[in-house]
């Protein structure tokens, strides 16, 4: 499939389309934690690196099949998500953000010293198993399940926690448990994105998963619109393409990138698609009336 595609599509574009898909999966995970449930996480790259290293080591050193390794990486990330989720029971806002930053740093420093992961040099020669179909197939599944989840009883409770924890409790929501759940699900997707990334790039090192990466992912969620699936997808697409387009301005790239973000947030403080949910669309198209 990829071979066929690359005959028709410029490999450079094909690569960007793949990265977009991986970023959508990563951002959907963070959206669950931060956009939907309102728990500010600034360490999503940490979960990504856990998925990347775990799956890469599994395929390279243990000859584990790619899908199994991918699942393994995601599960390890989810396990860490569980432990990072626990402090959310006590911490809010800035404090939680600090814990998540710290967590991602600790993971990064761990991999810097981790022999099987090649220390600072990283891992190279990871089999390139991630194909166009794997990525976009998984994007489709992730979007579908996310949409189902968010329109379900549990999904509504996630949003309720973001809006008002005390009121959510008085509706019978065990906020403690659901906040940890959001972390577990979100970090699972983080690990999945990391595994896909590692098996696309051949090569990973701890620097790939630094603080800047976490912020880049957070930007996607915030820019697109906290809690909105269409918004998160749009954010992931734009913020993957934008740096590429800005290559022409070379070293001013980061400056432009920052300025664009600031301008967007001034005009659309709730993100590009605000909190666009299915029922908003229904209302706009007049489909809601008959229900």
């Amino acid at each position, binding site marked *: 499939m990829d071979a066929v595609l690359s005959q028709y599509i410029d490999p450079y574009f094909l690569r960007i389309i793949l990265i977009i898909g991986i970023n959508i999966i990563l951002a959907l995970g963070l959206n669950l934690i931060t956009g939907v449930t309102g728990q500010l996480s600034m360490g999503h790259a940490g979960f990504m690196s856990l998925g990347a290293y775990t799956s890469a080591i599994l395929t390279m050193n243990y000859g584990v099949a790619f899908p199994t390794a991918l699942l393994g990486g995601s599960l390890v990330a989810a396990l860490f998500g569980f432990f990072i989720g626990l402090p959310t029971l006590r911490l809010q806002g800035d404090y939680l953000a600090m814990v998540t930053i710290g967590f991602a740093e600790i993971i990064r420093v761990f991999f810097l010293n981790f022999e099987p992961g090649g220390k600072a040099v990283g891992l190279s020669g990871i089999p390139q198993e991630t194909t166009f179909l794997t990525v976009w197939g998984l994007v489709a599944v992730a979007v579908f399940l996310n949409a*189902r989840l968010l329109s*379900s009883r549990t999904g509504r409770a996630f949003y309720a926690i973001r809006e008002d924890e005390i*009121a959510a409790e008085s509706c019978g929501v065990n906020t403690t448990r659901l906040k940890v759940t959001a972390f577990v699900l979100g970090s699972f997707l983080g690990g999945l994105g990391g595994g896909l990334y590692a098996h696309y790039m051949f090569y990973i090192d701890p620097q790939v998963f630094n603080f800047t990466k976490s912020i880049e992912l957070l930007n996607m969620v915030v820019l697109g619109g906290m809690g909105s699936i269409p918004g998160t997808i749009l954010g992931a697409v734009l913020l993957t393409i934008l740096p590429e387009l800005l290559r022409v301005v070379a070293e001013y790239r980061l400056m432009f990138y920052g300025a664009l973000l600031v301008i967007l947030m001034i005009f659309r403080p709730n993100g590009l698609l605000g909190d666009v949910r299915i029922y908003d669309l229904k209302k706009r198209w007049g489909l809601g009336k008959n229900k």
Partner: protein
Amino acid sequence: MPILELKGISQEFGGLRALDSIDMAIETGEIFGIIGPNGAGKTTLFNIITGIYEPTQGEVIFNGGNINRLPAYQVARQGIARTYQNIRLFKKLSVLDNIRVGRYGVTKNGIFSGMLGLPLARREESQTMAEAMRLLELVGLYDRRWEYADSLAYGEQRRLEIARALALNPTLLLLDEPAAGMNSSEKVELVSLIRRIREEMELTILLVEHDMNLVMNICDRIAVLDYGRRIALDTPIRVKNDAAVIQSYLGVEA
């Protein structure tokens, strides 16, 4: 058997004794008013009943069982629903979703069931939808169901909060100053709404309210709090004529 019994409830915040050995028993089916000047401890009492605070001393007995140590979400699942003095809606959720979240405590389907659309989830979702529609009609917000909760007018927000509480299918409903900020026609509607839900849903209602006419008009019995102490507990007429109450509270108002 009373539906709710408070036995010697005291609550201290630092050095402040917000409630001082409060005793009262609420009978099934009554509308029970709690009045008292600002800072008397009315909201604190609600917070204790609903599990937001654990009282420094005393017991909360609901349907014969002690609920002192239950966390708020479990108190809700036992069938105690409430509204807040400072409205606490889910602002950026639709009116409909606010009510549907209210059904959380009486439904069961979990993450995977919801994500995969298993039969339990689908059955509960359609029940939740039907119940939400009924409640939307009841509080007159059907036409506004797709709007964000924070786009509603003040009086509508208060009604939405009541609808969300009712979605829990409670047997005991606590209303903390439901008429605050309402104009007189809205208050008339509120009174008929409260009467109606008591009849139709077989509820017991505990009501904190500063509007004396409304309280006297709607309540079967009234307790008066003053500086954390219960200074009276009787029928509206007797409370109105109680010397201690007149001195500490009604006198000030008149």
